[in-house]
C-alpha cells in the first residue's frame, strides 16, 4: 500500500495557474474522489501524479519524492486509467492488457511467464478472458473501459488513478466498473485517486471527497460534509437537493 501526498503543488500553463498551491494526502489503501466543475484542475492533478505534467511543489509517494523516482519506477508504482484512452482499433484485448507489463520489462525485452500470468490474471479478474482475442474496435464502451482497467491492473502498481472512469458508460456499467475497482482495491490494497463527475457515485464509492475549483482545494472530507446544497449551487451553478437516505448522500437535480 502506498500513500500519496501533494504539498503546495502548482501547475502553470500559458501564464495561468491551473493548479494553485494544492495540498492533500491520500492514505494507503484509501479511495479519494476529486470533484469539481469542468476546468477545475482535477485531470491536471492526476496528470501531475502520472508524471505527465511539470509542477512546482512536492508530490510524495510512500514518502519518496515523485521527481526522484525514474519514469519506469514511477510507472511501477502508479497506473493511470485516462479519460479518453487511445485504443488502437486492430489490437487484441490480450495484447493491449499485456502492454501494462511495460514498466516491469527492459525496453528490448520480451514478456516472461510472470508478465503473461499478470496480464492473464487481470483479464480473468475483469471478466475479459473470453474476449482476449477480440480487437479493441469490436468492444462495447463498458468492455473497453474494463480492458483499460485490466491494463492498469496488469501494471501491478499500488496506486490507481482513474480519470472520470464512468463518463461514457450507462448507469449499469457505471456501477459495474466502480464495484470492480472497489473489489480490486480491497483485495490488493490499492490506493485509488479518482476524478469524478457524478457527485452521487463519488459519494457512494469514495472514502473521502476533495472538492476543487479554479485549481484550489475548496473543501475536503466525508461526502456528507462536503456535498451541501449551497456549495453545489455556488460551485456548479446547479440547483440540487441533497437527499440523505440510509447510506451516502444522493445529489438530485431539481428544476428551477
Amino acid at each position: 500500500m502506498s500513500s500519496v501526498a501533494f504539498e503546495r503543488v502548482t501547475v502553470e500553463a500559458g501564464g495561468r495557474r491551473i493548479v494553485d498551491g494544492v495540498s492533500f494526502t491520500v492514505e494507503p489503501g484509501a479511495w479519494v474522489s476529486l470533484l469539481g466543475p469542468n476546468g477545475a484542475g482535477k485531470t491536471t492533478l492526476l496528470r501531475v501524479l502520472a508524471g505527465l505534467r511539470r509542477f512546482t511543489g512536492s508530490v510524495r509517494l510512500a514518502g519518496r519524492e515523485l521527481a526522484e523516482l525514474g519514469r519506469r519506477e514511477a510507472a511501477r508504482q502508479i497506473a493511470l486509467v485516462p479519460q479518453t484512452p487511445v485504443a488502437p482499433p486492430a489490437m487484441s484485448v490480450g495484447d493491449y492488457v499485456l502492454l501494462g507489463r511495460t514498466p516491469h520489462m527492459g525496453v528490448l525485452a520480451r514478456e516472461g511467464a510472470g508478465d503473461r500470468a499478470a496480464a492473464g490474471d487481470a483479464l480473468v479478474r475483469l471478466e475479459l478472458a473470453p474476449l482476449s482475442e477480440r480487437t479493441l474496435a469490436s468492444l462495447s464502451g463498458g468492455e473497453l473501459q474494463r480492458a483499460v482497467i485490466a491494463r492498469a491492473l496488469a501494471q501491478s502498481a499500488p496506486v490507481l488513478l482513474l480519470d472520470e472512469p464512468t463518463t461514457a458508460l450507462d448507469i449499469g456499467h457505471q456501477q459495474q466498473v466502480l464495484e470492480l475497482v472497489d473489489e480490486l482495491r480491497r483485495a490488493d490494497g490499492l490506493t485509488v485517486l479518482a476524478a469524478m463527475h457524478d457527485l452521487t457515485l463519488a459519494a457512494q464509492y469514495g472514502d473521502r471527497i476533495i472538492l476543487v475549483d479554479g485549481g484550489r482545494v475548496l473543501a475536503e472530507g466525508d461526502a456528507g460534509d462536503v456535498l451541501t446544497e449551497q456549495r453545489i449551487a455556488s460551485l456548479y451553478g446547479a440547483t440540487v437537493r441533497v437527499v440523505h437516505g440510509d447510506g451516502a448522500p444522493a445529489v438530485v437535480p431539481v428544476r428551477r
Partner: protein
Amino acid sequence: MTNTVEERAAVELVAPRRVTPPWAIGAVAALVGAFLAGVLVGPVDIGIGDIARSALARVPFLDYETPLSPAEDAIVWELRLPRVALGALVGAMLAVAGASYQGVFRNPLADPYLLGVAAGAGLGATIAISYGPIGADGFLLPLAAFVGATVAVIGAYVVGRSLGGERTTATLILAGVTVAAFLTAMQTFVQQQNADTLDEVYAWLLGGLSTAGWREVGLVAPYVLLSSLLLLLHRRTLDVLAVGDDEARSLGLDVTRLRLVLVGAATLGTAAAVSVSGLIGFVGIVVPHIVRLAVSPSFRVILPLSTALGAAFLVLADVFARTALAPAELPIGVVTAFVGAPFFAVVLRTTRNVP
C-alpha cells in the same frame, strides 16, 4: 494448491505476438524465390546448376572447376549477384524504415517520402555530386544524403511543432510535405545550376540499381544492418507507442528519447539506401501495409516480415525493371510506383478507420 492451476491458466490466456512458422517460411521462400529470379533471369541464359557449381568453385581448398566461361562468371558474380544483394538491402531498409516511421508517428501514411527524408537525402546527394570533390562515387555520398535527410526530419519536426504542438501527428506529415517541397525546389535549383553534372544527378534521382557492384553493397550494408537491427529490436516498443505519447509515458517509456533513437535509425538507414539506389518510392508504404492487413497489426510481426518481404519486393521489381523493356531498362522507381500507387489507393479505402 489451486492457485498454481489458476496461474497456469492465466499464463496461457495471453501470448506475445510473434511471426508464426507458416508466415516465417513464406517470407523466407519469397526471399529465396526473388533471389533466384534475380540471379537467373537475364539476356544470357545461365542454369541454376552451373551457378551452384561456380559457387562451389569459389570455396577455397575445394578444388572445384567452374563450368562457366569467364564472361558468364562475371555476369553472375559481378553483375547480377551484387545487384540482387543491393536490391535486397535497399528494399529491406525502405520497408522496415517505413514501418517504423508509421509506428513512431502513429500515422499509416508516414514514409520516407512524406516526411521529406528522401527529398533531404536527394538535396544532400545532389550537392555532393555537383560540388563534391569526387562526384557521385565515393563514400561522401551516403554521408551527404544522411546530412540532408537529418536536416529534413529536424525541419519537419520543428515546423510541425510550431503548427500544432507535439502531440498531433497529422501536422507532422503536413510539415513533412512542406519541407519536402522546399528541399525539392532547392535540389532542382542546384541541379540546374550545374549543367555539367546534370546527367549524373538525373540518373541518380530516377533511382536504379544498374550501377550496383560489390563496392556499393559494402558501402550501404553496415548502415542498413545497423539501422534495421536497431529498429527490429524495438518492435515491442513500437506496439506500446501505439497507445499515444501520454499513455506510453505513464507505462514508463521515455517517449522523446525513443522517438529520437527510432527516427534517427530509420533516417540513417534510409539515407544510406537512397544514396546508392536513388529515390525509390512506395516500398515503405506498400510492404508494411500488406503485412498489417494480411497478417497482424502488431509491429512484432510487421517489422520482421516487412524486412524480408521488402527485400523480396525490390529484387523482383528490379528484375521487372531490367527485363520489361530489354535491352533498355526502366527506372526501378517507376516500377515500384506503378505497383505502389494503385495499391496505396486500395489501402486507403480499406483502412479508412484504422490508423
